């Protein structure tokens, strides 16, 4: 009996080792990074939350990525394609998707993922595969401190978002007491920490709370909002949760101003008079974008917000690197990575120049604050 048990245990260990061995991305080795690939029909990876709680965001990003790719191919007579991976904004799904993309030697660069926690989850996979990836919306400040050497982003960092949000609350909203709730994800805690620091340094009283993303009952937290609270700040990613929080505030007669970070910038968060920070300007009405918007809307409709245009720019940056690496009609991951640092766009559709510093940040990126009442979106900071 003991022998049988030992045999079973050994068999299980061997099976586990085999599974682990087959699961490891063989072609994600550094050698794969130097392998030249023919440029015809070369795929660009795309990672975004195409389904799940923030599917509206992923859909928008996917459409703008596809639109950017088609425009680029048409203008440059190239034939790049998009290979999409759905992450649902879930780090473990992002890891699985990243393993798949890294194992595909024809993928030389990736647009995405969308969330900071996903970037952290895929960092070591892409570092090992020497695979460049450019995020259109990941803003966590720690992502560009050198820990993720193949990472780039077209938007600003949470540190600059938190600083600009906190200063806006002080200068424009005359905040005396701010109620900050993080959603226990790295994106959220990063902004909440930094904004809290800036507010406290300027003498504003800060109440700091925390709640899980899966929670729908915020009533106990709402009860804690004091009558002297001027602003409730929600640096969250699930816009529907922001709306629930607002409705539960209304239910308890709390009238503080509500301010959401860029993660809440969607139609699901409908609080009237809300303030929203955004990593990109609303390009509607911006000079030189009318034709592009018309062309986009004829294909995908007019329901889009601020997540799409940065994806257009991120895709454009990655395709520029692909094109540069494809000079001899063959390209490697190492070449695409090196060419990402050389990308320079004088003026993107966001109205700002684009280039990357040695840690992958765009030095020209900045944040904006909008006040939204009904369908009216006013740039206020």
């Amino acid at each position, binding site marked *: 009996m003991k022998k049988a048990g030992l045999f079973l245990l050994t068999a299980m260990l061997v099976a586990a080792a085999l599974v682990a061995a087959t699961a490891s991305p063989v072609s994600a080795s550094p050698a794969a990074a130097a392998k030249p690939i023919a440029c015809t029909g070369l795929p660009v990876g795309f990672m975004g939350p195409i389904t799940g*709680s923030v599917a509206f965001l992923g859909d928008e990003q996917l459409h703008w990525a596809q639109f950017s790719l088609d425009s680029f191919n048409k203008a440059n007579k190239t034939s790049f394609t998009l290979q999409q991976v759905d992450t649902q904004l879930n780090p473990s799904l992002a890891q699985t998707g990243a393993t798949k993309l890294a194992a595909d030697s024809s993928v030389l660069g990736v647009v995405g993922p969308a969330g900071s926690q996903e970037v952290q989850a895929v960092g070591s996979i892409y570092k090992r595969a020497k695979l460049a990836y450019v995020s259109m919306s990941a803003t966590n400040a720690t992502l560009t401190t050198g820990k993720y050497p193949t990472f780039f982003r077209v938007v600003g960092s949470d540190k600059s978002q938190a600083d600009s949000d906190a200063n806006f609350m002080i200068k424009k909203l005359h905040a005396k007491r701010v109620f900050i709730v993080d959603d226990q994800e790295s994106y959220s805690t990063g902004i909440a920490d930094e904004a809290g620091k800036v507010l406290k340094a300027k003498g504003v009283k800060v109440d700091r709370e925390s709640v*899980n993303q*899966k929670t729908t009952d915020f009533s*106990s937290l709402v009860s*804690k909002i004091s009558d002297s609270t001027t602003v409730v700040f929600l640096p969250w990613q*699930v816009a529907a949760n922001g709306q*629930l929080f607002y*409705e539960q505030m*209304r239910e*308890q007669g709390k009238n503080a101003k509500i301010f959401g970070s860029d993660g809440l910038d969607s139609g699901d968060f409908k609080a009237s008079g809300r303030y929203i920070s955004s990593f990109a300007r609303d390009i509607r009405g911006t000079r030189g974008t009318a034709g592009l918007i018309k062309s986009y809307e004829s294909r995908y409709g007019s329901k889009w917000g601020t997540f799409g245009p940065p994806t257009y720019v991120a895709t454009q940056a990655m395709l520029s690197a692909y094109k540069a690496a494809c000079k001899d009609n063959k390209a490697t991951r190492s070449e695409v990575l090196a060419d990402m640092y050389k990308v320079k766009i004088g003026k993107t559709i966001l109205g700002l120049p684009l280039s990357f510093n040695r840690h992958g940040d765009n030095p020209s990126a900045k944040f904006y604050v909008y006040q939204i009442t009904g369908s009216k979106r006013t740039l206020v900071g």
Partner: protein
Amino acid sequence: MDLFVQQLVNGVTLGSVYALIALGYSMVYGILKLLNFAHGDVYMIGAFIGYGVLNVFGGSVSPVIPIPLLIVLMFGAAMLGSGLLGVAIERFAYRPLRNAPRIAPLISALGVSFFLQNAALLLFSPNFRSYDSFELSGGSLFLPLHAGVLKISPLRIIVIVATLGLMVALTLFVGRTQLGRAMRATAFDREAAAMMGIDVDKVIVVTFFIGSALAGAAGVMVGLVFQRVYHFMGFIAGLKGFTAAVVGGIGNIPGAMLGGLFIGLAESFSTVYLSSTFSDLIVFGVLIAVLLVRPTGLLGRADIKKV
């Protein structure tokens, strides 16, 4: 004081939902000694049935029938649908294993749970759905009514009153009807009950129907007050409901009610007075503390066996 009273309202609302879920766990355990881990997912299906009825009748923004009737229909359909689902689960997943070792139906329960979650994922996609009940009647169901320091919205009153009504009805059913007596007899000794002429299969079917119907009602309540429904919502709620059943004394109906309220209040008060970050840790810490002091739960009694 205001804050304390407000937490009572929040805790009782949440506790009402947990209590209704806990009742299903407790009733099934009382009769079959089975932990029905699919129960949380029956609650999820109930929430989706309520969502479906709401949308069939025009949705929250423009309902085509009067709102009270709409709410009654949502509850009715969710309770009926969940109850029938519970009966089907019992018939196909548990009854064939009734005389198998106790681990077999437990595994079967986990299998049913995964099946329901994935079926909902397939049918409704992973996207969140919202009851948008804030739009019902122009938001008036969420506007707080004031009574001294107490602020409570009509929707929370509906939830608390509906829960109380269902609990009273269940207590009367179990205590005063012939079928209720049969349920108690079966819970006490299934074999002896069968020998006394009680149709044990029928009792079990009724137990599953009632427990699952209550979970369906809880699903609609959550949809109305907290609005968001999705395929995985049964997991945490089921876990909390199970905890409530254990705290109250699993197998004991008043214990499940008490346990639900206890967990709901513990969660609300710990969020406000201790830490919002660790409220779940505190709730499950309370569970451990209660079980250390009273291993059979607040109202549970130890089985006494003649040896």
